[in-house]
């Protein structure tokens, strides 16, 4: 078990009230496993990742829960230990490489910075190694590209460079937060291939945060579906696509376009929108958008329960 999270609660304390961005989330990730965290925009996926790194922006903070990484309790770590975790044990790839890279330094410098910080390389060693890393992430002519500023690179190359900074510390876990959302479809496929290749090469676990069902199908071993700060279903990727149980998961799968579906057939979306976090519906937060919703659903949020080996679901209508 590489990562184990139990009952994590990360809240934002706003003037308007308490925003429960991550509310009682538990999950685990094994070594070298690829886990996808799926959900619509604004359901708390990114905050789960930031909680792991203790990087939640103010006025948010972790309220409760336990987080273990390689057997170590992340929540009892002091700042210095936490900084060792960031970059050295957990790497983070952001959604928009164009703004995640610092515009005033060359990409080579930014990779070298991680190498010097976490692997104690000298300036010269770090320079050589960063060129090596740029080659590893599939950038042609890495020697020259290392001297380029982020704005001189294409979006795909920027994302590759950003991935290089994230893996430079040789982390055991790579968190990729919507790594392909800002990219062209052809480049998306390349980046996904790259992530898979690097995962093999560096023996990393991958936590893939996405709202793209296609990406999930292509990459993940296991899937966790998140809605309004809670995990509502977890399953093996094959099981999930064959037989989704939670009505929300079914809705997500149904709303993704697929080849082979009859031409002219309309895409079925999920009715309604993600509710306001400060005015969540009573009980199951999904019930107003759910075709199965009834009085039972209004009573309390359904507990997440094992419904089959390796499968969990939080719904009164699923047994």
């Amino acid at each position, binding site marked *: 078990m590489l990562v184990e999270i139990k009952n994590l609660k990360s809240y934002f304390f706003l003037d308007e009230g308490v925003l429960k961005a991550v509310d009682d989330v538990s999950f685990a990730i094994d070594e070298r496993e690829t886990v996808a965290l799926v959900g619509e925009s604004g359901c708390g996926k990114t905050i789960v990742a930031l909680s792991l790194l203790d990087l939640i922006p103010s006025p948010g903070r972790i309220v409760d829960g336990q987080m273990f990484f390689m057997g170590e309790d992340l929540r009892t770590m002091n700042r210095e230990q936490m900084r060792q*975790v*960031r*970059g050295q044990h957990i790497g983070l790839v952001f959604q928009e490489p164009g*703004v995640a890279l*610092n*515009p005033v330094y060359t990409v080579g410098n930014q990779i070298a910075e991680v190498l010097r910080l976490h692997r104690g390389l000298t300036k010269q060693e770090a320079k050589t190694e960063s060129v090596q890393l740029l080659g590893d992430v599939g950038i042609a002519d890495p020697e020259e590209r290392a001297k380029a500023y982020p704005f001189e690179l294409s979006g795909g190359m920027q994302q590759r460079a950003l991935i290089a900074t994230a893996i430079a510390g040789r982390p055991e876990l790579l968190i990729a937060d919507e790594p392909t959302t800002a990219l062209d479809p052809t480049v998306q496929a390349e980046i996904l291939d790259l992530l898979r290749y690097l995962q093999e090469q560096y023996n990393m676990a991958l936590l893939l945060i996405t709202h793209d069902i296609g990406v999930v199908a292509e990459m993940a071993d296991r899937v966790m579906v998140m809605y309004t700060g809670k995990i509502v279903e977890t399953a093996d990727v094959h099981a999930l696509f064959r037989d989704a149980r939670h009505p929300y998961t079914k809705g997500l799968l149904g709303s993704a376009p697929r080849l082979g579906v009859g031409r002219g057939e309309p895409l079925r979306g999920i009715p309604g929108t993600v509710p306001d976090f400060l005015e969540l519906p009573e009980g199951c937060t999904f019930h107003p958008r759910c075709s199965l919703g009834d009085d039972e659903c209004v009573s309390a949020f359904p507990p997440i329960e094992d419904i089959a080996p390796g499968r969990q679901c939080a719904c009164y209508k699923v047994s």
Partner: protein
Amino acid sequence: MSNARAAPWLALVPGLGHLALGRRAKGMHLLVFAFATGFILIWRLDRVTGAFQSRAVDQLVAALFLIGSLLFVAAYSRWDVQRIVERADEPPMAVKSPWRIAGRRFRENTLAVASLYVIAVFYLAAILAPLLAPYDPSAIENVLETRYLVPSGAHLFGTDEFGRDLFTRALYGARISLSIGLLAMLLSKVLGTFYGAVAAYFGGLVDAVLMRLVDVIIAFPTFYLMLMLVGVFEANIVLLVLILGLTSWPGTARYIRGEILSLKEQEFAESARAIGLPPRLVIVRHLIPSALSPVLVSAALSVAGMIGAEAGLSFLGLGIRPPTPSWGNMVSGGQDALLVAWWVAFFPGGLLALTLISFSLLADGIRDALDPKVLMRRFV
């Protein structure tokens, strides 16, 4: 190419190697600088050698600076020529850093470049004053015969009421005025930048406490503080630098705080934290550099402001006290004699004005060179 083979040998004379390789601008600069310093060395050889025997520190510093800069230019130009020859086969650098682009834009701005030359010459003259000065700045002899002499070959700027050579005094005055301006600016900008950055980065209570202190300092009437401090302590360079520097940083602190507040929310700041950098490195390496270019502009203006403020204080008799010359107290000393001897106040005043104008033109040049809109237009 025979030039490439000859260049390292030509480079024994600073600049010639560059000229042979077609680097005209760099070559001319090196050549002129080497000739000027070399000329001064030969012209004032007695003073340079004398400096090592006497105990006059300022003369020794000037002599060491002169010899050191001559050696540096010689070594640099040889090293640079060799580098150019070695890299002749490589393709020219495709990558243009933002600083390089800004530098090129700056060089196209004739006025700004001219003011940079003026400033450079003034600072060099100030450092080398003990070697250049034709007379002793405070020697008084035969006052009746030497007082109020009209500017001439012997006394370029004339003499004052005590018969002291005004050109000499202006040179020594430049040391005071220019060094106070530069040091007070550095103190103010460095302090303001770090203060504002720390307040913004840590936010919350830290920010509130630090910025209320800034409010207090801004609300405090600086001028009366200066008058009081100058009244209590004897005014000298250190005191003036401290007073001017320590009262003028809140503006920079506020500006930097505002910038960093917005920069720290940007994703590259978050990604700097995510790779495990401690806060001080996030601030110094990732946030401050992005906020710094307007500070550069205001730094150039601020030197002018500081020099002006020092001159003002000295003019009022609250700054540097005579007989130590500063441009401010020289103007002050000349105002009584304005109708009899206009040159006493005119030359230091003129130098002061020229310096202030040069710094503001320099600031304009820096601003235009760093303007991101202009940068983009050139790049695309």
